């Protein structure tokens, strides 16, 4: 006997029973297909929603919190910033270029849906190891995809991360963050209101690409290469030129006040956009499936309704404004077609309304008839079993026992940990719009803040960072995630910014394993605790589960995107650099704990106990650093993160071509510890007393650790080499692994 159709669409038997209850009858195939995509893990967050509720989401400056297309915060001067992060992990594993490209396209639509002009992208990327050929192929394809789409669509990519680690073998993480700005009064929400208003489909035609992408791809793990290759038709294909025209047309429609609500078509395509706009507005909608412009002949209604063809938007407009809408779209060569009408619903007092009806012509046969809200609100909610891994309890017993890591060659380790990601970001336009004060490669990116309509410079800046650390989270997802949020906060402080909001991309394994659910739940608690302590709300996020390949789940990888504001941007932040004769000082508490560090993992030590986060100390350190940076007291600054003080010093040295003579670092543990709340600064000798006074007043520990200058890199008792040794290690790694991009 063949498998029941609901199972092949990814629905469980009990979910099928729920649908029968909602409809009071058996669903037909079209209805079943619509429930299948909307109730997929990717769209419904059915395994994570119950936990996400624990995150703090409110602050006086939050205009829109989680649940909309993007979070929005008030940044002053009548300007709001919209922020959103998404994953495109699974498509990118199958078809790296298009997977990454359409990830960029999707996140941009989330931002201009809110009425914001997208002004910056960031792309935290994680791949398998460089010595694996397939991982290199995926990395090159993904980076080309981000470059090809992002550059062409005309939004600068100003930063991100590039991490190579065995945990991502077969399952890369491709996260994309977008920042947009809008006048506060142009904020629009993705909702349909007003009976008789029209749903106008804008942009590309609808084809058979990406059908079931959310259920087939994004909500299942990977098994073997042959099966995965068969999934390739579920990956969509992007067209940045179409998207560029769509952005300009939509922003012009919004400027002209012609749009009541607007929604992008992403995962689950038309089904999601029509039902979401209707149910958010408390209305219903009739959709004429035959009116949808099709890319190919003979498409079935279920294909049209679930297609994930890219570069499409759904605008709700008043009938009187339709002619002007079409006129503006024609000017931008953007297709505009009326495909739906808003019908009564609970918002108009019609309790039996709120139906999403798919019709064969507005006066024709009703092909599907379901309560619009049931696709969202009635989606299953799972409190899946959670259990700490057995090793975890073992670890607790060993609390206090320091893990020891030993190395025969500290210099070789340092070189191994040094990676210049310029090979990646030199392929991205990171300067468009003349905002980029600090581009990729620093602690955080810095943008000038201009008014999106008048283009007037406010004299202030926005700062943006993304951070993730799977090594910490593998040891302790709760503390690891809190430390990740802490790192973001300190990255912003290093460019003189104070934090405003966080978005998160929670990349985890298969939630059907209790250990993975435990990781997810712990990580959310860690993030919630840190965000509350730092008073930074979470305004949106994305959960990507089923990141597993051949039975191996990835290390838990919550990625944090944090936006902050710089109150006075008169000069470029000092950045990761040294000046000749500058004094090197380490701000923050000493630490020699190496558990969870890159150095420990280099030596195959995976367990241990993470250094604790002292929230009060962390806030004091951030405050001190912000003051020193904005007061221009320091000449160079770099937070201590991946690779510890050793890598912080080495990066400052190679980036400025100036050597280091350091002492008072007792051993390799102190050199490579990634203990939190620490920043290395380079200070002109006459300003050392200022730094000392500021730290003393704040009760923040400070250590003099050396002098910058010359062409040697030396750490007393540990390393002594020509700076050029580090420079080659730094710049050659990606060039030699992935091919020289510039062939200078």
């Amino acid at each position: 006997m063949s498998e029941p159709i609901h199972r092949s669409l990814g629905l469980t038997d009990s979910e099928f029973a729920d649908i029968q209850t909602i409809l009071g009858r058996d669903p037909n195939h079209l209805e079943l297909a619509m429930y299948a995509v909307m109730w997929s893990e990717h769209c419904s967050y059915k395994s994570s929603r119950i936990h996400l509720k624990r995150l703090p989401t409110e602050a006086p400056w939050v205009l829109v919190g989680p649940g909309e297309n993007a979070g929005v915060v008030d940044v002053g001067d009548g300007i709001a910033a919209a922020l959103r992060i998404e994953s495109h992990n699974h498509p990118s594993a199958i078809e790296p270029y298009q997977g990454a490209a359409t990830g960029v396209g999707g996140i941009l639509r989330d931002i201009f849906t809110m009425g914001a002009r997208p002004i910056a992208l960031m792309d935290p990327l994680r791949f398998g190891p460089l010595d694996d050929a397939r991982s290199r192929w995926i990395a090159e394809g993904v980076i080309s995809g981000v470059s090809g789409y992002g550059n062409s669509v005309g939004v600068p990519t100003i930063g991100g991360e590039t991490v190579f680690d065995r945990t991502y073998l077969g399952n890369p993480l491709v996260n994309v963050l977008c920042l947009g700005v809008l006048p506060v009064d142009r904020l629009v929400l993705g909702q349909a209101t007003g009976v008789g208003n029209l749903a106008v489909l804008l942009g590309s035609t609808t084809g058979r690409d990406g059908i079931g992408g959310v259920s087939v791809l994004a909500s299942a793990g990977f098994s073997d290469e042959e099966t995965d290759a068969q999934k390739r038709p579920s990956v969509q294909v992007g067209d940045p030129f179409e998207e560029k025209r769509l952005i300009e047309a939509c922003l012009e429609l919004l400027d002209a006040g012609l749009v009541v609500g607007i929604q992008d078509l992403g995962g689950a395509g038309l089904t999601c956009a029509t039902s979401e706009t209707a149910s958010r507005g408390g209305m219903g909608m009739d959709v004429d499936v035959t009116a949808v412009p099709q890319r190919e002949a003979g498409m079935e209604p279920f294909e049209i309704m679930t297609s994930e063809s890219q570069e499409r938007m759904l605008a709700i407009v008043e009938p009187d404004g339709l002619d002007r809408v079409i006129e503006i779209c024609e000017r931008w060569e953007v297709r505009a077609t009326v495909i739906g009408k808003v019908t009564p619903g609970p918002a108009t007092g019609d309790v039996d309304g709120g139906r999403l009806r798919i019709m064969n012509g507005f006066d024709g046969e009703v092909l599907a008839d379901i309560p619009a809200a049931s696709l969202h609100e009635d989606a299953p909610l799972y409190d899946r079993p959670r259990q700490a891994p057995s090793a975890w309890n073992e670890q607790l017993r060993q609390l206090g026992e320091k893990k020891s890591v030993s190395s025969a060659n500290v210099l070789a380790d340092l070189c191994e940990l040094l990676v210049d990601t310029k090979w990646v970001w030199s392929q991205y336009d990171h300067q468009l719009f003349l905002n980029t004060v600090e581009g990729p490669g620093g602690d955080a990116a810095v943008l000038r803040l201009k008014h999106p309509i008048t283009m007037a410079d406010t004299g202030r800046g926005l700062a943006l960072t993304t951070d993730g650390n799977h090594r910490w989270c593998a040891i302790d997802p709760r503390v690891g995630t809190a430390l990740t949020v802490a790192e973001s906060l300190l990255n912003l402080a290093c460019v003189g910014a104070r934090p405003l909001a966080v978005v998160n991309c929670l990349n985890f394994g298969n939630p059907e394993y209790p250990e993975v659910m435990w990781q997810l739940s712990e990580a959310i608690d860690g993030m919630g605790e840190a965000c509350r302590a730092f008073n930074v709300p979470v305004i949106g996020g994305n959960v990507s589960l089923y990141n597993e390949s051949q039975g191996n789940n990835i290390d838990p990888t919550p990625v944090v995107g944090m936006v902050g504001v710089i109150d006075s941007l008169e000069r470029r932040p000092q950045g990761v650099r040294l000046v000749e004769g500058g004094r090197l000082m380490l701000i923050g508490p000493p630490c020699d704990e190496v558990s969870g560090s890159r150095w420990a993992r280099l030596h195959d030590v995976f367990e241990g106990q993470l250094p604790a986060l002292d929230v009060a100390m962390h806030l004091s350190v951030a405050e001190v650093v912000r003051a020193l940076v904005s007061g221009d007291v320091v000449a160079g600054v770099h937070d201590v993160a991946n690779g510890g003080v050793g890598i912080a010093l080495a990066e400052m040295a190679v980036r400025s071509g100036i050597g280091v003579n350091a002492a008072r670092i007792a051993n390799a543990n102190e050199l490579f510890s990634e203990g939190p709340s620490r920043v290395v600064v380079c200070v002109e000798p006459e300003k050392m007393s200022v730094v000392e006074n500021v730290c003393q007043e704040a009760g923040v520990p400070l250590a003099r650790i050396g002098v910058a200058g010359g062409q040697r890199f030396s750490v007393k008792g540990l390393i002594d080499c020509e700076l050029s040794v580090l420079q080659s290690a730094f710049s050659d790694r990606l060039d030699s692994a992935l091919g020289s991009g510039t062939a200078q």
Partner: protein
Amino acid sequence: MTTRVGVVVFPGSNCEQDVCEAVRQQGVQAEILWHGDSSLQQCDAIVIPGGFAYGDYLRPGAIARFSPVMGAVSQFAREGGPVVGICNGFQILTEAGLLPGALQKNRGLKFLCSEAQLRVESTNSVLTQQLDLGAVVSIPINHFEGNYTCDAQTLQQLQQEDRIVFRYVNNPNGSVDDIAGVCNEGRNVVGLMPHPERAISDLLGSSDGIAMFRSLVSSVMAG
């Protein structure tokens, strides 16, 4: 009367607002010119900005050159009006036959966004007349197809007629003779791959581009 600089926008252009900012910094008006109009709105100078006109379909500039506005730009150029093409604008000008040569894919076959050092090789053009000959300026590049090429005879002509306006100090893309920018015989049409509008503020990393826009504006005054 105030000088007006027209900035042409095709579907897919993306540097137009940046060029407008650089133009306004000179205290003159910037006017957006839509590709579908065949009028230049009495502008005194024209800039074709960077981006991906028509998505670079077929090849960069190949479709844009057929836009109605390009007929007017060609006419304006023939009459001696100052025309500058930046990046994609340079590609469009070569496709339109207003400048010789062509831009092919970078050596290395990668998109490249980075700082570039340029040497000013000729100050006899509408974009460089206020620059110092031989000076090295820092102007960002941002392109995939920036590898300038032309036949040997054209190259010789460019060299002999002092029409190579900028050369790269460290050739990033494989351009023949390190060429970063050229001008036409009348010296009123200049194309370059680097983006001077991205170098108009120390806050953004360089202000070496300001003098180029000053040159363009003063060429109008002089003309």
